């Protein structure tokens, strides 16, 4: 009976191909929109998650100054934080490691190639904290930090722009702001951040080298602090605040001249904001799907009226109300599901095109495909039911007499 139903439904649809196609278009566009919106939203979320893990897990960042607004050096004194502060923080309970950062823009040169990029003074903890090992060579060592050695680890982009293809940068002599450095490693490529910034356009050198040779300062720009677990972050934050308050010899009433930020929770907030955005986008798309569904209902109603005589005849030769109802319900369902499947294809293609053109990451998930399929089937049943019921309720005699 099911195969008969399908057969009858297909025949019914074949009888008015153009109309079926146009009706389906509403569903196709609706489903494609849902798939694309979810793909874009989930792509953004995935990117943020990647960024969270790329930034380092359970990360707290200590900035100089009492800034409450901007992230970096927000007002006040920017040189209150030292590497020694970092070493003291590293001794605290439930702190896994601390990596300082002192960054500056500098011009690199090799042979007659030059390249301007961000040079960050740090310690070997950085590679562990970010879980970002070198692809070739090694990261510099604690000894290099002790001795303020002129060594550098290049990001992939910096390496690509400085060295001709095929040449191994490891061991090469380069200049950073005219000072000679030895390249000891090249980091694995990390790709673009969500902001579009190239994370591989970077150079790491020992923090002491940056302080003494490059900038001639004694402070650091920030401290990355990794806690042992998400649960310990609040405790670590308080410990850092107490410790630095004391180390900086601030009075009991005085405000902190530094700020501790929980980066993970910041990004998690961004992630949940994106989730809400995704939901919003998908809801708007779902509205267009709903409109498509109303189109289905409209066409089914027209179809029932047009085929009144056919319905009467089918009843005369033995179709029950259920047969008629199922026939039209199947037709609506076939319309919606076919439209749904085409829409999934279109949405998938659209998502791929968007990510290719805009460089925006997209992810078509099985979940969104199932959702769209289920939704279009639901729409078929919901909007097909009333017309089908109407067809089934026809009186065979009146229906047979109907002339159009």
């Amino acid at each position, binding site marked *: *009976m099911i*195969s*008969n139903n399908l057969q*009858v439904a297909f*025949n019914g649809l*074949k*009888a008015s191909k153009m109309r079926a196609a146009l009706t389906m278009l509403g569903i196709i566009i609706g489903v494609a929109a849902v798939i694309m919106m979810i793909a874009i939203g989930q792509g953004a979320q995935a990117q943020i998650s990647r960024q969270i893990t790329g930034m380092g897990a359970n990360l707290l960042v200590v900035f100089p100054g009492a800034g409450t607004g901007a992230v970096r050096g927000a007002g006040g004194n920017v040189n209150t934080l030292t590497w020694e502060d970092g070493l003291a923080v590293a001794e605290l309970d439930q702190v896994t490691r601390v990596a300082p950062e002192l960054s500056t823009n500098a011009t690199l040169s090799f042979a007659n190639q030059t390249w301007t990029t961000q040079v960050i003074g740090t310690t070997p903890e950085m590679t562990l904290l970010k879980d970002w090992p070198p692809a070739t060579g090694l990261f510099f060592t604690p000894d290099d930090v002790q001795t303020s050695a002129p060594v550098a680890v290049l990001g992939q982009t910096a390496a690509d722009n400085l060295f001709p293809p095929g040449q191994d940068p490891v061991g090469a002599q380069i200049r950073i702001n005219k000072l000679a450095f030895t390249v000891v490693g090249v980091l694995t490529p990390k790709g673009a951040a969500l902001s579009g910034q190239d994370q591989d356009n970077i150079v790491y050198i020992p923090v002491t080298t940056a302080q003494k040779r490059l900038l001639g300062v004694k402070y650091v720009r920030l401290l990355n602090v990794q806690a042992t677990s998400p649960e310990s972050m609040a405790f670590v934050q308080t410990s850092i605040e107490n410790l630095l308050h004391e180390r900086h010899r601030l009075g009991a009433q005085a405000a902190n001249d530094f700020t501790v930020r929980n980066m993970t929770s910041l990004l998690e907030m961004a992630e949940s904001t994106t989730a809400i955005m995704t939901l919003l986008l998908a809801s708007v798309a779902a509205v267009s799907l709903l409109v498509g569904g109303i189109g289905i209902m409209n066409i089914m109603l027209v179809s029932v009226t047009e085929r009144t*005589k*056919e319905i009467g*005849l*089918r*009843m*005369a*030769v*033995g*179709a*029950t*109300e*259920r*047969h008629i109802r199922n026939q039209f319900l199947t037709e609506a369902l076939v319309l919606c599901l076919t439209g749904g499947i085409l829409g999934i294809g279109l949405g998938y293609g659209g998502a791929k095109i968007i990510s290719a053109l805009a460089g925006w990451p997209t992810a078509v998930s099985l979940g969104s495909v199932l959702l769209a399929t289920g939704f279009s089937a639901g729409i078929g049943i919901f909007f097909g039911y009333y017309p089908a019921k109407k067809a089934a309720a026809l009186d*065979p*005699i009146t229906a*047979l007499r109907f002339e159009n």
Partner: protein
Amino acid sequence: MSGNPTIELENIKKIYPMGTSGVTALAGIDLTVETGEMVAIMGSSGSGKSTLLNLLGCLDRPTTGNYRLTGENVSAMTKTQLAAIRNREIGFVFQGFNLLGKMTALHNVELPLIYTGAGKSEMARRAAEALGWVGLTRFSHHLPNQLSGGQQQRVAIARALVNNPTLILADEPTGALDSRTSLEIMAVIQRLHRERGITIVIVTHEPEIAGYCQRLIRLKDGCIISDQPVNRPGDALADLARYPAAGEVNSL
């Protein structure tokens, strides 16, 4: 099959609700049609012929009275049960053929089989057999608009007989056809009656058509005013052979 008559009507009344009193379409019909009879019903317009035929066809239920079809009381049945009875026991032939325009002749004939739950191959086999019986095997894959009126009505007859019904009801089956084609159709219906033993009830306003039946019932104002055997019923096939050949082509 038991000795039950095909049709037994007992004081059948049909009153259509309309205004305060309603319209009485049938005002107490008693009628028995034995198995294998071929009956014509005549009467002026509005006399209740179609109403009676619809009741006989289980498309409608009487307001009061009992209807037994081959001994089964169908006046007490639900709509779903009536649909099954129509499917199994009754075939319809309409004045306007009522073929589905987008379907081939074969698929039109298959239509009742869809609702018996027959398999695909069995459906095709039985429909082809029925089409063959009315002499249209060659036209199986034609659409109705590619067939002449007579051919279309023969497809409709094939559809009516495909489920081997006990009763075939025809409402003005020749009303839309020229006289030669009418003869052809009557020849097919007479064969149906003679070779297959199917009980046949035909509503017509043409006395010539009634002349091919065995029994003639006249209705007036919802009552049977006469019920008589037809004197020496005609043989449509024999009359067709004598029919002037001039009208063979292009007659409307």
